[in-house]
């Protein structure tokens, strides 16, 4: 469904991605793990064309989207809940969701709204509240809900667990799994919480200094000694 081939991305003169290859197949959850600054968020943003790749090729459903403007990529069936959530702070929850539905089918709006409210009942209660006044967890839910409003075939999630209480983290991961299983939405998930992400994912990639160091199924990576040493032991959460 998505193929990233030898992609390089520059931020000024710094090469943030140095020839990344990944592939995401239909209906998969693929986790992308790595430490801070490894280039995980850059990869998601490059897929969306902001910034565009300096070299390499990105194919979505067989079509080359490497040089397509961002807003057109986002109209072709990809949605992203980006790093830092990026909720519109001076818009209400409903308006944020309406923005998410911009590229969707207007006739399905109320159906989709009901759908995200049933996944995240708290958003229904907060409907008329401004985005900037929500708690971190609520903002994360809103970011995911907003991305779902366009019925994407490929959903890009950037650190959905960042800064959230462990209980909410578990809830969010459960919801991600449900979205994948119930609607068949393909998910590319960027996470620092490697343990949760790899348990959930069908496959995973480990990104180190802007290139892919390791790949395998979620189970394989969880068992891998290097992965355990670098991302799982010590600070990582091993709660069940």
């Amino acid at each position, binding site marked *: 469904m998505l193929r990233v081939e030898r992609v390089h991305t520059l931020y000024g003169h710094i090469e943030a991605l140095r020839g990344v290859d990944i592939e995401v197949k239909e209906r998969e959850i693929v986790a992308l793990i790595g430490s801070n600054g490894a280039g995980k968020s850059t990869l998601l943003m490059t897929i*969306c064309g*902001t910034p565009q790749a300096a070299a390499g090729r990105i194919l979505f459903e067989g079509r080359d989207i490497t040089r397509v403007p*961002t*807003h057109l990529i*986002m*109209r072709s069936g990809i*949605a*992203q809940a*980006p790093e*830092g959530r*990026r909720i*519109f*702070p*001076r*818009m209400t929850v409903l*308006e944020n969701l*309406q*923005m*998410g539905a*911009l*590229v969707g089918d207007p006739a399905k709006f109320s159906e989709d709204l009901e759908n995200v409210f049933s996944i995240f009942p708290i958003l229904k209660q907060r409907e008329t509240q*401004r985005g*900037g*006044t929500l708690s971190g967890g609520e903002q994360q839910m809103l970011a995911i809900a*907003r991305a779902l409003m*366009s019925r994407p075939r490929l959903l890009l999630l950037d650190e959905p667990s960042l800064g959230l209480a462990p209980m909410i983290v578990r809830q969010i991961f459960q919801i991600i799994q449900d979205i994948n299983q119930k609607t068949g939405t393909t998910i590319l998930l960027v996470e620092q919480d490697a343990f949760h992400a790899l348990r959930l994912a069908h496959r995973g990639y480990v990104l180190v200094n802007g290139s892919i160091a390791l790949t395998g199924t979620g189970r394989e990576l969880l068992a891998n000694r290097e992965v355990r040493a670098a991302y799982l032991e010590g600070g990582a959460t091993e709660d069940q």
Partner: protein
Amino acid sequence: MEYFLQQLINGVTLGAIFGLIAIGYTMVYGILGMVNFAHGDVFMIGGFVAVITFLILGVLGLTWVPFALLCMLLIAMVFTGVHGWAVERIGYRALRNSNRLAPLISAIGMSIFLQNYVQLLQGARNKAIPPMISGGVELMTSPTGFTVKFGYMQMVIIAVTTVLMVGFSLLIARTSMGRQQRACEQDMRMARLLGVDVDRTISLTFIMGAALAAVAGMIWLLYYGIIDFYVGFLAGIKAFTAAVLGGIGSLPGAMLGGLLIGLIEVFWSAYFSVEYKDVAAFAILVLVLIFRPTGLLGQPDIEKV
């Protein structure tokens, strides 16, 4: 008391004009974070398009006043909108990701260009039109013989401005286009990630700002009966002052600021000195910037993380 009431009417009328121009400044600032110094000249172009339309209608013999006014209004809005669009497309778009000073300097250049363009095409002499709406209602007369008069022209100005401002506020608050505009204002990259065509949204912002300024230009022409290629400079700076006073980036702020600048200028002229009326408006700007830099209705970006 009667004198005061008369000044109030005059001040609100002038404030309506400044408010209409100020909306263009505040919206562009909200989205691009730049001051579009050519906006005052776009307002002037609105006045000129109205004059030209008036003359053409006269030649064609279409002089029924309501029809002529409507034609002038629509044609001025369309043509001035095109100018607003072109200013952004030519002068600012290529500079959008550069140093903050670059578009500012380009804006000053666009302003000088537009003044010269009108001067060359239309001549440096001012253009005049005969009064199209005259008369008014005499509200009251004081014992000393001073009569408070609410001109029909003033009524039309205040009514048209009110309708436009309400309509425009609803457009921004309720429609998908308005939401896209606010989204670009709050987080342009995220707006793009949701499929918003940012270039198109910015172009629309310039077109709408210019169309409102065109209405102000036409009102100016009808109210004062005269216009020249330089009129946009001072009116533009005052409207910019109004936008800052109300809180730049805020739509209701621009309207309130415009009203206040109009009132301040008229009352200062009426009670102190006409010669120093510009000083009054700008002194207020200085005070606002010292004591309340975000303006009356502006909000500091504390919600942003």
